């Protein structure tokens, strides 16, 4: 059955009136012209007149056929299932590091990128990202190769160190936003200072995404360098006025020993320069201690930016700078249920030092009477279950099933017993006896930071009253009282969510923990741990959170979500908070949604943040394959190794599918007919006579 893809073009058939009107107008003149004699005309005209009349009609038919064929060709008729969907999508990652400008291979890699962009069309769109410490994207998937090439030509040169592990994660997330069968990431790099073996492909590439690596030949690369391999913050929690310790990993790819200077700058901390020495072909870690700038600074548990510069003595000055975010404490999001009104809510105070901040209170407190969105909550603290609405318990259980974390502050009442009983935790008795802690699991992530700041305070905390509980075997005791009763228990809930039970109430009658300095860091570390758990769960489901990935747009573009609500755009700023370009704005999607651009009242280009889990199956590339990638011939497609089907099978299957979806090109036949009719019309028609 023939169908039309763009039937609107059939409106062009109204043009058929033009040849008809021309035919009628040209057909018969009304005014007679006197002529000397028709002696020589009568004999010939009788014969040719009939022939001419036929010719006129034939020309009219040809003209009509031409117009009709063109209209139908534009309407795009097809037989069977029509497929104009995207066949394949490609993300090109260009290494924006300074070393890419080396004369030996710059042109080779540049041409490779241009060639890749030249292959773009409407069924095979592409996206390009310039990888530095961040990734600069061209916007979204585009099928306009000229635009892509132009954008690439103006943006490809960079002076920064490239970070491909982050870039690959982003590239994969971008590919997930597009629905097509063939997905590919093309990495174009000089392979300088990239610790490829340490890029975790196992988590990055999903089943079906191909990786193509374009690198120069080994003999093209003139140098090998030292580079900053990575950095991490040693201090898990930084108090006001406390030092910030950063662990900088430096690698030496040279065949000889090397030395140099590492300079670290961070917001609100004094700049530190430190010399280092590193043996040939090795990696070393150096701890850099940053002193805070002010003495009486308030505690700021927020992230800050830092830059690390490395000047090696025997090196060329390239790729030696790296920017990063230092996160001493990852806050996460917490919800705390209300406690009895006559008691001070100590946990709330731990997260909201400014008591007068009502907004902060509202944000973290809930009472369960109204439905609360627990989707984004990292830790849910249930203090007094009597105050919670009964229907809320079901909501909490669902939250737990989805992988949420619940901390229950123990209380000897029926509601708490009933709730805990559901998880096979039974409160047997209440012990009114002063005791202290005898054991703390310092290997646990919540308590491990305390080993570095040497805190004995934990063992000086008095507990005047606590509960005696029995818990399932999979429960893990994090802290224990002197009498052997558990103080804090961690319990897995079907392998997803976690329940933490604190076997004492948090008020002045039961403990003096709140007066100790370890109280506040504990809750923040606790939240940080819960936040990391949520994150791990998400990664396990391969739901890479790209909600914070900025989308770069020009200033005349408006972005709307699926409810037609305009989204806020912010100017693009560099690491120092300076506006880079007045014309360029960024949009940071906070919520999973479908967004679209609007430019001059014309809607175009959709993009989706956080696609469904179905598209995000885990792919595993083992490290032997990664090594192979390093040595492969350029532009070779690398299939996913653990895929159930072999590459050949996959290719055969895709070709078969593509045949099935491709429409028969009737439009071409129609255009040929139109062309033939036009040529015939020119041959037959006499411009003056017909």
């Amino acid at each position: 059955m023939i169908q039309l893809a763009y039937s609107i073009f059939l409106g062009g058939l109204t043009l058929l009136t033009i040849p008809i009107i021309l035919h009628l107008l040209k057909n018969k003149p009304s005014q007679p012209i006197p002529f000397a004699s028709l002696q020589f005309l009568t004999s010939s005209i009788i014969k040719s007149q009939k022939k001419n009349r036929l010719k006129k009609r034939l020309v009219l038919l040809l003209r009509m056929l031409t117009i009709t064929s063109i209209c139908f060709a534009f309407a795009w008729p097809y037989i069977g299932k029509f497929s104009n969907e995207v066949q394949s999508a490609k993300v090109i990652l260009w290494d924006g590091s300074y070393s890419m400008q080396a004369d030996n291979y710059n042109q080779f890699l540049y041409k490779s990128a241009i060639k890749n962009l030249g292959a773009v069309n409407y069924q095979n769109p592409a996206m390009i990202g310039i990888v530095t410490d961040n990734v600069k994207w061209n916007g979204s998937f585009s099928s306009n190769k000229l635009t892509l090439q132009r954008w690439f030509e103006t943006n490809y040169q960079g002076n920064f160190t490239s970070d491909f592990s982050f870039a690959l994660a982003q590239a994969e997330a971008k590919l997930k936003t597009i629905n097509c069968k063939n997905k590919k990431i093309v990495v174009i790099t000089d392979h300088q200072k990239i610790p490829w073996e340490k890029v975790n492909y196992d988590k990055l590439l999903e089943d079906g995404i191909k990786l193509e690596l374009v690198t120069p030949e080994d003999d093209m690369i003139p140098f090998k360098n030292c580079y900053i391999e990575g950095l991490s913050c040693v201090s898990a929690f930084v108090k006001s006025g406390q030092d910030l310790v950063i662990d900088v990993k430096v690698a030496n790819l040279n065949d000889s020993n090397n030395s140099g200077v590492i300079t670290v700058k961070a917001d609100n901390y004094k700049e530190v320069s430190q010399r280092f020495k590193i043996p040939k072909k090795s990696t070393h870690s150096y701890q850099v201690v940053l002193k805070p700038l002010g003495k009486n600074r308030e505690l700021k548990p927020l992230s800050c930016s830092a830059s690390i510069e490395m000047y090696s003595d025997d090196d060329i000055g390239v790729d030696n700078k790296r920017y990063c975010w230092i996160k001493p404490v990852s806050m996460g999001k917490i919800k705390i249920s209300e406690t009895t009104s006559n008691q001070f809510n100590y946990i709330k105070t731990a997260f909201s030092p400014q008591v007068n901040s009502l907004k902060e209170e509202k944000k973290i407190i809930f009472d369960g009477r109204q439905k609360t969105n627990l989707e984004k909550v990292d830790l849910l603290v249930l203090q007094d279950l009597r105050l919670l609405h009964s229907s809320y318990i079901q909501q909490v259980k669902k939250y737990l099933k989805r992988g949420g974390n619940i901390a229950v502050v123990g209380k000897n009442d029926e509601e708490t017993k009933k709730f805990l009983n559901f998880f096979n935790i039974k409160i047997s008795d209440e012990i009114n006896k002063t005791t202290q802690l005898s054991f703390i699991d310092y290997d646990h992530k919540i308590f491990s930071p305390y080993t570095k700041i040497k805190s004995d305070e934990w063992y000086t905390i008095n507990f005047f009253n606590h509960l005696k509980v029995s818990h399932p075997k999979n429960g893990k005791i994090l802290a224990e009282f002197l009498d052997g009763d558990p103080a804090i228990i961690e319990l897995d809930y079907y392998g997803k969510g976690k329940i933490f039970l604190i076997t004492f109430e948090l008020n002045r009658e039961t403990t003096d923990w709140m007066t100790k300095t370890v109280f506040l860091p504990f809750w923040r570390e606790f939240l940080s741990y819960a936040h990391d758990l949520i994150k791990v769960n998400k990664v396990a489901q391969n739901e890479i959170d790209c909600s914070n990935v900025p989308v770069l747009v020009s200033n005349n573009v408006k972005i709307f979500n699926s409810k037609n609500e305009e989204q806020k755009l912010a100017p693009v700023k560099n690491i120092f908070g300076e506006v880079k370009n007045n014309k360029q704005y960024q949009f940071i999607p906070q919520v999973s949604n479908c967004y679209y651009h609007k430019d001059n009242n014309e809607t175009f280009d959709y993009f989706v943040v956080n696609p469904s889990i179905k598209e995000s199956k885990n792919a595993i590339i083992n490290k032997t394959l990664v090594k192979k990638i390093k040595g492969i011939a350029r532009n070779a497609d690398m299939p996913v190794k653990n895929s159930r089907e072999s590459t050949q099978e996959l290719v055969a299957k895709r070709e078969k599918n593509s045949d099935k979806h491709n429409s028969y090109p009737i439009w071409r036949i129609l255009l040929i007919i139109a062309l033939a009719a036009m040529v015939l019309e020119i041959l037959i028609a006499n411009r003056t006579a017909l």
Partner: protein
Amino acid sequence: MPNSVEQNINEFLDIEILNKLPSLDVKARYLVEGFLKGLHKSPFRGSSVEFKEYRSYQPGDSLKLIDWKVYGRTDRLNIRLRDDETNMNVYLLLDSSASMSYKGEKSAMSKWDYSISLAAALMLFLMKQNDAFTLSLVANHLKDFLRPSSKRSHFNTLLSRLCLQPNDQNCDLPKAISELCGVVRRRSIVIIISDFYGDLKVLNNQLKELAYLNCEPIFFNVMDNSELNFDFDEPVLLSDLESGSKLHLSPEVVRKKYLENLNAHLLELERIVSSVGGEYLLLNTSIPPLKALGKYLYVRSEKFK
């Protein structure tokens, strides 16, 4: 007439000027004077007895023509030739059918205006040579025939006949020639100015009769440029000036066939005229009719050889 002479003559004549001249008499003078200026040397030999040349006696020549004095001195029989001893009788027949009134869009003169200018010029020319001449309009028959004369008054009378517009529907030229044969003197020149539409077979028969009378016919075929080239662009509705019939046609389609038919007709006409020893000249109304005067001179000179 050589081309260079024709070009020379054309320098003195312009069809536009000819068309704008006030009267037929002036038009005739304009043509004749222009023609003579172009020739530089007058072709008139007049009626005076004037020696021209000797030639040897041929059997059949009149004995009166032998120059005996030369015979006495040289023992050779020579004949003494003299110029224009006798006036020529010239009969002009002018087609007055409706088709002669045709004037193409781009033409300056209609075929009729052109023809009467030519006829007037010829008559003036003949009068200057003391040739006896007469002119008759041809419709269904020979109209108002007068005997030839070389007088000025005769010229004026004939000129006044030409001031009328042609309104006759048809032209029966063969019949007119037939009528002329009854009154024409032997060894005369018959000049027919027409577009010669019609059946050529009948005309051929009548011409033979004329040839029998030892008359030499000169055919001036006057045609408009549009007739010769059929230069219409758009589809047209043509109406026949003589019959009044109308015809829708696309010029591009019929042009080829039309021109084929026309050329065949003209060739046939020329052949017919040549077959009876006559002269044929196709005249385009966009070019001054000087060739016609030249043609007459040529025929006249041949006649006296």
